[in-house]
């Protein structure tokens, strides 16, 4: 009788433990994405004319660099999970020159790919509602008739004694770039491995077409110029190889 009791207690405990385990592993969790900025093979340092004009003479400095990441989709075994209202303004003016997104309430799954856009979708771009980091009163807004800057780069090109302002504001619906990254290893919510990306600021001027900043010191509303920079920034983000792979 005593023996029977201990066996049933043991079974009960086991079942409870299993139930708790199943419950916990079925709960949504947090997935972290991190974007580390570099400039070619150099670190990103703001307000320092340490970078060579990729297409011509002079050195350039970066005063501001920020862009929108939106419509993040996680591709898992159970399907595609679209993060609601995922409009994030990535900026790197911090001590680690990186930008981090903690995706909350991500359903429990094994994710093998992630897609997101640089820029914002047509609906959001034509709206004046504040959603996520979209704010029509922010510096990323042109005005309600034009929409948002998808990417903003401001700085200066210094060539001998001449200081020339650099202003690259790229927007327009056609310049949203949707990127897909297949993950070398599947990730699950709350796993310690963050999704780590490298953002190469220099690719804005070298990605597909090399830009001479002296010849093209500003890009705003000219569609061809904007497309040229957008095609370049479409190449600026890559998955950072894990330390194991790098060895």
């Amino acid at each position: 009788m005593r023996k029977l009791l201990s066996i049933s207690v043991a079974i009960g405990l086991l079942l409870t433990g299993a139930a708790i385990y199943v419950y916990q592993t079925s709960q949504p969790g947090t997935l972290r994405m991190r974007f580390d900025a570099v400039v070619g093979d150099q670190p990103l340092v703001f307000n320092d004319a340490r970078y060579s004009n990729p297409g011509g003479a002079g050195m350039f400095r970066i005063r501001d660099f920020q862009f929108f990441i939106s419509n993040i989709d996680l591709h898992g075994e159970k399907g595609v999970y679209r993060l609601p209202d995922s409009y994030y303004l990535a900026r790197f003016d911090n001590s680690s020159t990186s930008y981090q997104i903690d995706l909350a309430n991500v359903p429990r799954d094994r994710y093998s790919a992630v897609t997101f856009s640089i820029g914002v979708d047509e609906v959001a771009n034509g709206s004046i509602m504040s959603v996520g980091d979209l704010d029509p009163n922010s510096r990323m807004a042109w005005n309600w008739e034009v929409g948002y800057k998808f990417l903003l780069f401001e700085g200066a090109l210094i060539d001998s004694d001449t200081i020339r302002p650099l202003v690259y504001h790229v927007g327009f619906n056609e310049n949203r770039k949707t990127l897909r990254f297949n993950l070398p290893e599947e990730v699950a919510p709350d796993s310690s491995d963050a999704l780590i990306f490298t953002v190469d600021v220099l690719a804005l001027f070298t990605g597909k077409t090399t830009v001479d900043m002296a010849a093209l010191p500003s890009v705003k509303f000219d569609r061809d110029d904007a497309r040229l920079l957008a095609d370049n920034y479409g190449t600026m983000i890559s998955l950072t190889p894990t330390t194991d792979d790098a060895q």
Partner: protein
Amino acid sequence: MLSLCGLVLIATIYGFVGYIGPKPTPLQGFTAPFVFGNFKVPVDNPLTQEAVQLGRRLFYDKQLSGDNTVSCSTCHLQHLAFTDGRARSVGVSGKMLDFNSMSLANLMWGSRHFFWNGRVDSLEEQALAPIQHPDEMAQNLDDLIDELAADDVYPGLFKSAYGEISAENIARALATFERTLISSDSKYDQYLRGELKLSAEEELGRKLFMAHPDIKVSLRGGNCIDCHSQFLTSGFNAQFDGFSNNGLDTEALLTSGLQFTTGQVTDRGKFKVPTLRNIALTAPYMHDGRFTTLEQVLDHYNEGIRVSDSLSPLIMEADNQPQDGVNIRISLNLNEEEKRAVIAFLHTLTDHNFITEDKFSNPFDADTKPDA
């Protein structure tokens, strides 16, 4: 058992304090245009009727200064959209201060850093600084608390709004009153709500305001929106995006500005971008009040920019006429008609209801209120 007794005791005390503590009334009918965007009120200082009433009285009360001659409203007059009409303000010491008095409108939006150099991060923190500044109000906070405690009216007002009379609660009440100072009924607001059309000149000015010029696509622009957001017309909210060097001085004459707060030399000469709401009423202009008219302001942006290292590249680059690309001469190159149009648009930001609203007026003047 002992810990259980402790718990019961704590719960009892908590319940008792909850019972005798103030139960202020949440502010009713408080609204703002959705185009202003989201706003946050501190969790520990909600908008309540009692706090607004107390804050309004404190704002207008000369007891807040050391010699009882100056109140907040001395430098923030309602009929001037809460500015004082002086280039630089003057407080109890009679000395001219370093800065121009800033308008108090729509303070829950735009930059979260206050003062021209952004040195505090909340309205609560802001409120206590002028009170204690030796040239502004020169008041010792402990003395002020004693004065208010001896007053006929304040103990009751504090009790119903917050509880005790303290420096913290003085700051909270002033901040709460300031948060209610919303200007949202200008001609521009009425235009945004679809209630009226702007005149042809105002509309030209609006278009220029909202555009960074681009010669390549023949877009003319006044470049205002690069610093002043489209609906709020204030500086930007995120981090220190709402601070800019707008080319007032050469490198040699540049004062510290935001550098005082951040310690970054690249922030030297950057100052807070103010709201342009009611700008036609808030002369003189700039952080040091150097310009007396909007015409001078437009002339500055059009052809008076001084170059320094932290000068906004957006100002350097903005031009409505092609340049030879070698000798860069900074000028917006707007024509006279366009400059007048921008000024006409700026006048649509004047809100008569804001400057005559009873709820914002001096409660000590209740009997001698001028007609609106």
